[in-house]
């Protein structure tokens, strides 16, 4: 179980992994201390392992920097829930093994305690006593996520042919 941290629409990768910390990109634990700083200054010190980043439309628009989902993951978030995702960010999440879930996040409030069941495609909101369903990931993404990300997938299969 983890807590929901709510963000708005159009959270760009410049807000998630700001350019002013460009020099920390090869030092990911240090960069993670600034995760989502552009959207919420203290976020890195507030988020706990197992929590959820919950946002509106078009989460992760902008730069291709994979550092953005990597530091959300490193900071402890279990998944990112949004109404929609920008394309590159979405792929990056799955590639690094961070679930990116598309669902109606209007039904989640800041601080709600959530539980995620990837297999059933259900988010249980313990605070509200409600259940949210989400569209399962496209097959290919599900397979990559299931194996722990694209690095693990390629180590296991040595090719993309069966993807």
């Amino acid at each position: 179980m983890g807590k929901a941290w709510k963000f708005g629409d159009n959270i760009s990768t410049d807000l998630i992994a700001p350019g002013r910390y460009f020099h920390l990109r090869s030092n990911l634990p240090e960069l993670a201390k600034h995760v989502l700083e552009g959207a919420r200054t203290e976020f890195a010190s507030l988020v706990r392992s197992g929590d959820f980043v919950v946002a509106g439309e078009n989460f992760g628009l902008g730069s291709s920097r994979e550092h953005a989902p990597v530091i959300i993951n490193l900071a402890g978030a279990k998944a990112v829930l949004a109404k929609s995702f920008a394309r590159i960010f979405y792929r990056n999440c799955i590639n690094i093994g961070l679930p990116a879930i598309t669902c109606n996040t209007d039904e989640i409030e800041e601080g709600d305690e959530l539980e995620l069941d990837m297999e059933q495609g259900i988010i249980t909101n313990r605070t509200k006593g409600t259940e949210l369903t989400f569209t399962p990931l496209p097959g290919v993404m599900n397979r990559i996520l299931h194996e722990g990300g694209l690095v693990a997938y390629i180590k296991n299969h040595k090719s993309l042919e069966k993807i």
Partner: protein
Amino acid sequence: MGGKTLSEKIIEEHCGKEVSAGEVVVVNVDLSYMQDGTGPLTVLRMKEMGIEKAYNPEKTIIFLDHASPSPRMELSNDHRFLRDFAEKTGIILSDVGYGISHHNSLESYARPGDVIVGADSHTCTNGALGAFATGMGSTDVAAAIALGKTWMKVPETYLVEVNGRLPKGVYSKDIILHLIGKITSNGATYKALEFTGNTITGLSTAARSTIANMSVEAGAKVGLFPPDNETKKFLKKMGREEDFREVGSDEDADFEKRIEINAEELEPVIACPHLVDNTKKISEVGKVKVNEVLIGTSCNGRLEDLHIAASILKGKKISKNTRVIVTPASRMVYLEALKDGTIETFIESGALVTTPGCGACDGVHEGILGDGDVCLATQPRNFKGRMGNPNSFIYLGSPAVAAATALAGEISDPREVM
């Protein structure tokens, strides 16, 4: 069954079977690249995959363009790491000073009909030549470099038809800003944008690349221009006419949507802070004092862009309250601008010129904004914090708007000084 879109055709050639939009396929990649912001992680991912070599090193490039030359020890070490990897693997290195990945790619590597992946979101710039080029993250690009392949979903296509003569002072930048304002920053997510119409055929490759570049700002996967006579002319100028080939959508192709734009009705467009789709006609922006003007970047740093700005600045002085930074996109552009007197015009007007590369756009060097600073930039993005300071404000406009703004010290309509 109807005809095929340009995207479907290119993808079919690269996966060896018939495809339709919506299918997931594995395709051969012709060209892949990374830059110094995404490159160290890309190399790390290749190491983690246990494949520390490129499938096709002569078609793989490392560009040192984002922090170039390096302003900090940590980034100098990243550069060392990438240079060493290039040396070890035979991957091409485009070192500090050669400029932005996407421009070097247009000048020297990308071909019509190619599949190109780059660890930079603006890789779609290569669509100006009719290449299916898209930005991806480090792990995806690592896989593409290692295996020579990537997987993708064949996108549906939005056909954007632009017709009519562009009014004086209105450029391709205004077309794409207008489009993004109209369809929003996720209006084309996962889609291919394909550009057509007589305005488009009349645009230079440079002007097309501005539109291709910013296609991702509407969420698109690619921004495609079917290769034509202009493409042929451009490739010839680059000394690689043999790379030209024709490929285009069938007339009865299945386009998911058609968007029409009348070029004659356009006026200069400004994207206001802090989102690219927050656009306004320049006449609606009002008086906005500007502390910094940036002319350059992957969106508008080509010779044609510098010429447009210089023609407005020639013989005049920039406002004493505004600093003006000009960053040529590539070494080739820089050299040509130097030889034809464009650089001299900038310096005489009071502007400064930096090393070719991303410059101030990525917020690490060469013009980081101060608290409360307002910038008018020709770059593709204005997100909060983009230029290194979350307490600053970025407006986007064409090189002509940038030059007019530089003279007045506030956002100004270029049509009044042309």
